[in-house]
């Protein structure tokens, strides 16, 4: 007789692993099933070229909840975060702007473009950090249930209200407006210089199919400031050994706590009987029984792919069909024979040891978006480049480098259909390299190996529907109690025993670990396992 698990977790990405670790920590018998040969989902590291280790998909760690690091003792399991030192913006005219960890240096840099902006910059940061405190309280607990009249839910709403009240009236008002403003409109209220506003505004659009002028993008700027208030950890960092280093540490922690983890075990179906899940079926037919199933894969794949419409009511199915995924970004990974010199600020100084933004102006970014709206990749995209080998010698041979470029926009839904991406992959990669070449003329000569990932490839490789890196757009209508479907923001699903624990659940995507943790805790609290 086969074992019945307390919980089976579909998907071995960082959220699935966090859920597993918390459930195992509470003494439950847990199994994680990952379809690939490697763990981490989109937070993984792979040696794609001999001697070169890449953070294949996501490339920086910023929002990972610090209490999870403590509670799961991830440092003991090998996690090491190396902070980013700067945010570097090369400009086509040969100038550049570098924002440093040191506020004084940053002010000096900004003052070269606009002295007034330099004065306002610290003030802005302070306001953002204060507001980020409020956001933190939202992402560290389950979504409020606005339609519920249960005392417990009302109390939560009231607590949030009180917390909100503790902001001073001006900030409260800014905060309210910020919810629905565009990143550019919001920054316009503070700053004048486009050189400063453009690289600041991009944090509002990363991974989202919206432009910097699209309403709703301002709020995401706050996330940028959240890392800073978490104390022990600096805002943005590389995980040593690549982003996979984080996932592997969580996996080690989970195993140490008693969780089982299987790779190359693709879940084909989530079994449902009389409205209740009884376990999963793997590709190949193996059946695994479980009292609860936690899905860390996206809602579309979970419900329309693994559960099946026949087990869902039509209204819920409609909601899942309406759930927008719309991948809009891609990735280009390069193994380089030598350090790539940037003309505007030569040398491999600290300015290269952070992230490098190709975002020369708001109109540049908006035009990139305009092209993508109608189903074409941006000819001159926004790039976010990192060269982790400068600070982490374990990822490349001495003197050689890995360069990872996050690319936006690359719409999954090309005008010619998503399945035509393979025909456009080469041209897309060339557009990216052409863009880099404008700032780093020698780049082509240095390339030893090149990997181009379109949203189609991301979907094929890690299973993220439409290649959406957040498992669903982080737009207001898909957040909080609306994520992944209206009224289902508390990890439970209409299928009894099936829980959501990935980025498609509150509080959403990014390497946060929060959905995984909150889902596990909600399941434990339900006393159903």
């Amino acid at each position, binding site marked *: 007789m086969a074992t019945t698990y307390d919980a089976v977790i579909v998907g071995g990405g960082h959220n699935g692993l966090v859920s597993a670790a918390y459930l195992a920590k509470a003494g439950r018998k847990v199994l994680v099933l990952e379809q690939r040969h490697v763990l981490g989902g989109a937070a993984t590291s792979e040696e794609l070229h001999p001697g070169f280790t890449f953070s294949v998909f996501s490339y920086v760690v910023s929002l990972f909840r610090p209490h999870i690091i403590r509670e799961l003792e991830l440092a003991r399991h090998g996690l090491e975060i190396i902070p980013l030192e700067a945010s570097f913006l090369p400009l086509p005219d040969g100038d550049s702007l570098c924002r440093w960890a040191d506020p004084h240096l940053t002010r000096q840099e900004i003052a070269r473009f606009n002295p007034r902006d330099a004065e306002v910059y610290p003030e802005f940061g302070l306001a953002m950090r204060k507001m980020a405190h409020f956001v933190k309280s939202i992402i560290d607990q389950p979504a409020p249930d*606005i*339609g*519920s*009249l249960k005392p417990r839910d009302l109390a939560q709403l009231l607590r949030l*209200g009180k917390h909100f*009240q503790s902001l001073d*009236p*001006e900030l*409260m*008002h800014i905060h*309210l*407006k*910020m*919810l*629905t*403003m565009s990143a550019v*409109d919001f920054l*316009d*209220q503070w700053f004048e210089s486009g050189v400063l506003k453009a690289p600041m505004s991009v944090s509002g659009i990363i991974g989202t199919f*919206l432009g910097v*002028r*699209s*309403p*709703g993008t301002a709020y995401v700027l706050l996330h940028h400031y959240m890392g800073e208030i978490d104390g022990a950890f600096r805002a943005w960092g590389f995980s040593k050994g690549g982003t996979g280093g984080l996932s592997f540490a969580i996996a080690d922690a989970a195993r140490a706590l008693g969780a089982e983890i299987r790779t190359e075990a693709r879940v084909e179906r989530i079994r449902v009987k009389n409205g209740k899940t009884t376990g999963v079926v793997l590709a190949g037919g193996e059946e695994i029984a479980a009292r609860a199933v936690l899905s860390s894969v996206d809602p579309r794949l979970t419900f329309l792919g693994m559960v099946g419409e026949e087990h869902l009511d039509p209204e819920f199915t409609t909601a899942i069909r*309406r759930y*927008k995924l719309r991948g809009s970004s891609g990735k280009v990974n390069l193994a380089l024979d030598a350090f790539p010199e940037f003309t505007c600020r030569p040398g491999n100084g600290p300015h290269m040891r952070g992230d490098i933004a190709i975002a020369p102006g708001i*109109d540049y970014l*908006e*035009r990139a978006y*305009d092209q993508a*709206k*109608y189903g074409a990749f941006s000819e001159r995209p926004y790039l976010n480049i990192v060269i982790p080998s400068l600070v982490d010698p374990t990822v490349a041979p001495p003197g050689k480098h890995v360069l990872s470029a996050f690319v936006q926009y690359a719409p999954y839904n090309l005008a010619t259909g998503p399945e035509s991406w393979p025909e456009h992959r080469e041209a897309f990669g060339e557009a990216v390299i052409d863009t880099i070449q404008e700032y780093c003329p020698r780049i082509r000569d240095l390339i030893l190996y090149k990997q181009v990932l379109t949203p189609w490839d991301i979907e094929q490789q890690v299973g993220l529907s439409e290649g959406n890196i957040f498992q669903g757009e982080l*737009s*207001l*209508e898909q957040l909080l*109690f*609306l994520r992944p479907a*209206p*009224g289902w923001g508390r990890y439970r699903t209409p299928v009894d025993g099936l829980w959501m624990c990935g980025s498609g659940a509150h509080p959403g995507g990014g390497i946060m670990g929060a959905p995984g943790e909150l889902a596990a805790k909600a399941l434990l609290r339900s006393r159903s396992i």
Partner: protein
Amino acid sequence: MTGETTRTAGGTGRSAANGTPDVTVIGAGVNGLTAAALLAKAGRRVLVLERREAIGGLAASEEFHPGYRTAGVLHDTTGFREGVADALALARYGLVRHPEPLPVWAATAPGSGILLHHDPGRAAAVLGAQSEADAAAYRRYRGFLNEVAPVVRRVLDAPPPDPVRMTGRGAWPLLGTALAFRRLGRKTLMEILRVAPMCVADWMNEHFETEAIKVALALPAVAPTFAGPWSPGTAANLLLHECAAAGSVQGGPAAVVRALEAAARAHGVVIRTGAAVEAIEVSGGAVTGVRLAGGEVVGTTTVAASCDPRHTFLDLVPSREIPYRLEHGVRHVRGEGLAAAVHLAVRGPVAFPGADGEPVALARIGTTLDGMERTFDPVKYGQLPETLTLDAYVPTVEDPSLAPEGCNVISVLAYFVPYDLHAGWNEAARAAVGDRVVAALAGALPDLTGRIEARQVLAPPDLETRYGAVRGHLFHGDHALDQLLFRPVAECAQYRTPVAGLVLCGSGSHPGGGVTGAPGALGAKAILG
């Protein structure tokens, strides 16, 4: 229309004491007249000062070519509040309403179109011929709107909550509204919260198949704001627009003005035209009078300003009298017009195809939602799009007296036309707008071109000079989620301002622009206390 004089000596100097009004209203548009009439009805001595010779502002009927008159720059009268009409007994002054909003003709292809009735029962036959699914979807769409409209209207017709006092006593009205929403049921409440932040394109795509229907319905969502159909938050504009809609006023905006003017005069309101207010005089933090062009000072302790708040605070009130934060906020109110008004004098009939002999007063001409978005893209860069999306109104359908016998007037609001045309506004640019409007119309009315006797093109800067619409914005500031409710800025969102005696009563205040009379009524209410 001739200017009427108050009992003053004329020229400079204060008005005679017995002529001193209790309230001086700036602007004789729909909101100014509404406020004036309501205040006079409550026993106040009211003087209205209108800069122009015509009464009615953007709703005024004006001759644009010998023998041809418009019925206003704005077209839509469905939002005119029944509460205002009732309070002023406007029926007695000639106001007649249709039982429901006028049907809208939508271009489906060059030379063909459909007439979309508001009532889904009447619309079913026409829609069904296009798509059975659309007929059903339209029923569902209207069903949802009918369900939520009473509660949404409650928000639209009440003063907004005090943005800085949302606890304690200030919270009660808010709680009342929250409960009213809650009574709609959890599902409907969630749906409102889901739809509001969406982009109108997504909302339309969830319902309809036929692009022409989507475009025709979506136009009011983008008209009052700097947005294309793919901009998030535009669904909220449509939701609010639809929820506020009642029967159209027979005769269009000009008919609203006629009734309001008659009611106002009957209650003793004195209206002076050709009286441009140049400054609001303030002493000791309180209003003491207004100074007209030419130097005349009208003594008054209360001013109700129906003009754009940016004009009120940045031009009329001495800047030392307003707090810096208010000034900063007002300066950052977003509102740059994106519509040109084009009036055509047409010989012979205007017969839209496919209307089955029914008269067509309103027509919306675009291609697809994507096509509409493409007409929005260039304006972000200060360029004029090649094709325009039209909101056309044929006032002569209801009021043939506006044109010579057998002739017609077509008034068009053409989207999207930038205020800040980088190449500069000149006669050639205006002609280009006119040509593009005629080209789009000719797609629907093939024999039109040869019958145009005259045309008047008012680009956004022209609308600014003529009507005082700051930056050509017809709604005194974008209708965007962050600029609704706490409008124009938090410090004077409840109509009263930090200057004692200065009250706002125009489109720049909640619930915003359009021929509604709502901010006028709420401003008057704030004065009456």
